[in-house]
């Protein structure tokens, strides 16, 4: 009996491992930046390049940094959701316009609407490298101390928003206000 059982058990284990492997997205690489300080940057603003914006200015606030570009197809999918969430006002969304032509980026925002408090231009993608960006869109939730608490690789989905980003942002805001 065991003679027939052993191969069956091995087969079963193999199937379980393969099934788990199939369900995972190999493009989702765990970011080493989670729970680390968000890399500092000071970049010109997209709408007014004479003004700059730095991550430092957001100290004491919970905010989202969304990496986007007009050439990025998934960003287009994500965009209506961001507009909806920005309107909700739970957490301010800032944009990092990654390796884009400012005129294309501005046209894109004009056409599809602008969910961002403001966007900054990372023309050569150097700040993107600091943030470990490898596939726009990517979204970082950053807390009052400037620590990255969550990173979404690929478009933010309603599921991710409801289950991860929103609860975590609300929790952080609650902690911040009692401190």
């Amino acid at each position, binding site marked *: 009996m065991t003679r027939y059982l052993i191969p069956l058990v091995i087969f079963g284990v193999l199937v379980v491992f393969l099934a788990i492997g199939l369900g995972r997205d190999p*493009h989702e*690489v765990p970011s*080493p*930046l989670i729970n680390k300080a968000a890399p500092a940057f000071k970049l010109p603003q997209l709408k007014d390049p004479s003004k700059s914006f730095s991550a430092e200015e957001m100290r004491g606030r919970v905010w989202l940094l969304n990496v986007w570009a007009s050439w990025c197809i998934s960003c287009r999918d994500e965009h209506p959701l961001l507009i909806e969430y920005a309107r909700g006002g739970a957490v301010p969304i800032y944009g990092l316009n990654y390796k884009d032509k400012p005129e294309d980026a501005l046209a894109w925002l004009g056409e599809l609407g602008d969910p961002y408090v403001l966007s900054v231009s990372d023309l050569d*993608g150097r700040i993107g*490298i600091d943030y*470990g*960006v*490898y*596939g726009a869109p990517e979204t970082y939730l950053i807390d009052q101390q400037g620590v990255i608490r969550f990173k979404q690789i690929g478009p933010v989905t309603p599921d991710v928003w409801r289950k991860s980003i929103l609860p975590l942002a609300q929790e952080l805001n609650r902690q911040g206000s009692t401190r």
Partner: protein
Amino acid sequence: MINSLRYLSVFRVSAVVFSNGHRSNPGDADEAEGGLFKILLSVVLICSASIVVSAQLRRPVSNDPPDPAVEQRLAKLSQELRCLVCQNETLADSRADLAEDLRDEIRTQIRAGKSDQEIIGFLTQRYGDFILYRPPVRPKTYLLWFGPFVLLLAGLALLFRYVKRRRDMIEEQPLSKADRAQVEKLLSSASRKEIV
């Protein structure tokens, strides 16, 4: 790029020719087979064309004249690093935008006199160990590094046990005197025949 496009169109023509040849055979099955063959052929050809393209387009982005020593270190280093966009390619081979940016970044850091260790540290800090093709040995990766050897040893142990059990099952049967005499007689008669 233009060259590779030309390659592609040549391939397209040959694929069409192939499928037309098939069409002269009557019957639907042949048609379907020809279609599949055409698809397979185009896949193979498009893949080979992209190899041609990647060989043509690898060049530094910056305008400075390439420094052979820097380029050599970059080539060696980037062979060990994964391109995160197309994950089965090294940073050296990849044509992805990010790979080009990272190669440029490494180039700048080499010029600035950073050691290989420092550069790899810079990259893993941002992209994690995943960027390394050779993951570091640490408790989390023990299974990856030592798992195959454990499996090999387990396999050997099982094999030995099995062989030993088989051997124990066979009982040695010593020859009786009469058998031995018969064997010797047979052997000697056989060798005599061979000589004759």
